[in-house]
């Protein structure tokens, strides 16, 4: 099981709307919230659809592929024993209605990064209960 980040990274915080997202992640399923009325997709999870204001929503599993929308190479560590530099990216998810998420790009040389580059999800199991979706370059 590959680990890229130490245990001391900030832990996710979720309210009851977001808990199902992290439960899916623990099973290595990447999901977005989709409105059952107008099919608008969104992330992070919210109680009502910002487009049609419906309360109805479902979890839509996406492929785990995407592309770099923007990124930064960070040279200061966040946690003890963390490797630097590390990459934070905005990932535009495929098949998610334009939804993007913040994540990391792992196993990459910062110099090979560019906006538009194709990515795929790389799950990091931080513990039995917690898996974090990071991304790697499709090679």
């Amino acid at each position, binding site marked *: 099981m590959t680990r890229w980040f130490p245990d001391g990274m900030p832990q996710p915080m979720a309210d009851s709307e977001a808990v199902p997202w992290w439960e899916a992640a623990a099973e290595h399923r990447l999901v977005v919230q989709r409105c059952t009325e107008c099919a608008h997709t969104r992330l992070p999870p919210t109680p009502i659809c910002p487009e049609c204001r419906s309360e109805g929503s479902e979890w839509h599993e996406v492929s785990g592929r995407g592309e770099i929308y923007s990124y930064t190479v960070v040279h200061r560590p966040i946690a003890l024993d963390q490797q630097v530099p*590390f990459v934070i990216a905005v990932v535009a998810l495929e098949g998610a209605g334009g939804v993007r998420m913040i994540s990391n790009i792992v196993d990459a040389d910062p110099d090979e990064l560019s906006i538009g580059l194709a990515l795929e999800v790389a799950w990091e199991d931080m513990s039995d209960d917690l898996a974090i979706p990071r991304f790697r370059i499709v090679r």
Partner: protein
Amino acid sequence: MTEPARRAHLVGVGETRYSKWGKIGDVTEHALACEAIKKAVADAGLSMDDVDGLASFAEDRNEAIFLAAELGLPELRFANMVWMPGGGGTCAAVSNATMAVETGQAEVVVVYRSLCQGQYFRFGQGGPPRVAPPADAPPPTVQQASSMMLASIGFTMPYGLLNAAAAYALPTRRHMHLYGTTTEQLGMIAVTFREHASRNPRAVMGSRPMTLEDHQKAPMIADPHRLFDCCLESDGACAVVVTTAERARDLARRPVEVLSSAQGTPKGYAFGPFSNANVADEIYATGGCEAMAKRLYARAGVGPSDIDVAQIYDHFTGCVLMQLEDYGFCKRGEGGPFVESGALAWQGGSLPTNTHGGSLSEAYIHGLNHVVEAVRSLRGESTSQVEGAEVCLVTAGACVPSSALILGRR
């Protein structure tokens, strides 16, 4: 329409000493706030007994009700706080003070900000703890979010997105991709403001000249942000006094009129690109202020070409560049060549900007020091004075919900 006698004016400014963060430990943060407020009230030629309102903006530890007690205000008739994170609400706090005096809720409102980060915590503190966790620490899991804000940034923090330098790098990097903006162009902003600071005795970096080469050699923090693309972290306090035209007429200083004020948060924006990966594509690589800027200009009856001097919130150089586009000083995507032309320079620039040195070189007081400088520049008292300046734009933190002012002198 406000009756002319009640039109809001800025009549006094005050500030304490400014220093590097953590360097002010001999007085409390609220004592520093009191000092700045006293100085601003004295500058206006008013008495503390005249003050009946206090206004501030997000994350203020120095609650108005306690300050009012400490300052001995006869009656606090207006106490107000802006719903915006960090420096985005600076100008909105002045705007709220303006509305209070124009509607007769209060007569004299002081807007204040005091920061002593060493006495509390450092903003964006995200570095590793000094002490290793115990060997029997529980394994990482999902924690209960205690607020809406934490539930939202629960989707960014696990990836290490904690520091502003990294967060604001994201829209800036995309701007570079879309328009070919360069790190040298970002550097020009930092170098220009440092030059302005060289004449300002209050500026923390006033005696530290910087060249473009220095900027390019500075350590990388979060690409494309090098050290000198990031604002200072400072201790200090400042304050601005707002009252009506009628009161302003007989006071010590030439009053500065609030020609217009506005705040703006685009649809779906939340905390902006700082934490929200889903800011609309057409505004992702902007400061998010374009719609607000149009309202601001329309209300003042002026346009970008009427702005004689600007005080632009400079948390990061890229955010300055994107705001210049938002506020119509150049077209979208042309911020790079615009700053490269020397446009922001006190001497010879078409838009002298941050004549005090800004947050990059004077001090980081959440941008209220930009309002102070705007007042000085319209009184003719800036250390980098733009001759005959009559109209000044002041902006608050961009790439988050923001606010702005247009100030003028008659």
